[in-house]
């Protein structure tokens, strides 16, 4: 069987040049294990340990509404004595946006 790459027209000789060009536009930020979807592309988690800043962070995320669809969930952790707050957010393009 032939390599998949051999059907793409990039020769082994030109691979180095192609890699250099590709690295300009694409960077591997994270690498996920088999069967684990790249959750960072869809949603985010912010851990806020200073309670005074929770409102500000939520306001900043909520301000994206209108430009993007933002879903927020706020969970305190460390119950009974809360140590911080997890803010889960999910950002989607507005339909047609």
């Amino acid at each position: 069987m032939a390599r998949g790459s051999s059907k793409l027209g990039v020769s082994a000789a030109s691979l180095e040049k192609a890699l250099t060009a590709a690295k300009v536009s694409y960077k591997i930020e994270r690498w996920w294990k088999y069967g684990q979807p790249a959750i960072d592309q869809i949603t985010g988690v912010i851990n806020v340990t200073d309670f005074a800043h929770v409102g500000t962070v939520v306001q900043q995320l909520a301000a994206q509404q209108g430009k993007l669809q933002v879903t927020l969930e706020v969970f305190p952790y460390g119950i009974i004595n809360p140590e911080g707050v997890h803010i889960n957010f999910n950002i989607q393009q507005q339909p047609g946006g």
Partner: protein
Amino acid sequence: MNCQGPNGSEFRVVQLHPTLRCNLKCRHCYSSSSPQNAETLPPGTLTGALSILRDEGFNVVSVSGGEPLLYKPLFEVLNFARSLGMTVTLTTNGMLLSKAVVGQLAETAQLLAISLDGIPESHNQMRSHPQAFEKMSRNLELVRNAGIPFGFIFALTLYNLDELAWVAQFAIEQGARLLQVHPLEEEGRASEELSGAAPDEEELAHAFVEVARLQALHSGKLAIQFDAADRVSIAAEPARAFAINPVENAAESTLGSLMSPIVLEHDGTLTPLQYGVSRDYQIANATAPDFREQITSWKSTGYPRLLNLCSRVYRQAIDPSQYTYPFFNWYSAVLRASSHDKLVQIA
């Protein structure tokens, strides 16, 4: 101290394999799941483990398998994870999605990942089922209508990179937001049926170029993720590959701040990083009454040993005399190294 690891510091991931039962017998399956395989974990074991792992700082639950939709108490477990404030993702072959199931997923899962291994003919061949593609694609409308964010996971082999452009176009047409390219790992059934089919590092380099091209072409419509490690990046940040010294207060730290991802396997074994990592490195077993104590003990004993293993993998990965191309499958390298240690001990 919050160790970064390959997923970054904000996502502390527990991958669950509640069952090895599957409606398919895929050629590339790393867990050798099949319709004949009935091994499952009781839901009480899973929820009990999740409570403890939440306390240990984990915030993402990712369910895989086997086919998770064949696990009868699935939504009991997912709802429990949601009640703990955890982000939930689920990976499925997509063939068993019904309106009722999708309705429940809309309430519990923030991201659905569906396996897609190439053009329909290739997908069906990999899945050992003549209608796998047709049945999966028929169900995508249900997912779209329910508004569940979804993506496709493509298993890259030595032979199918040329099909990635078709997969990306299909993903966009179906309304997917994510396309994830993951190198085949020759583990489980794949080690028998697809021996020699994992992409070598030359092919990974070609795949990176193709991913970059497709990402530029489909920018704003589809996020394309390439699951290979970049040697230059990890050389600059060894913590991303756990090539670090143990933190001084490991026993007092949460497990999630030390290690992510972790995997809860079908038999209750909790392993670091990868399904099938040698049991010499296992963290604990969720079926044992002292699960929490086992985790605490591992922080002092198993954690330094695992970092030692990761440091060895790291040194080899960044040694210029050992490689030609810039990308490699880090998880597979760690898994192989853990098994190699076992073989050396036996010898």
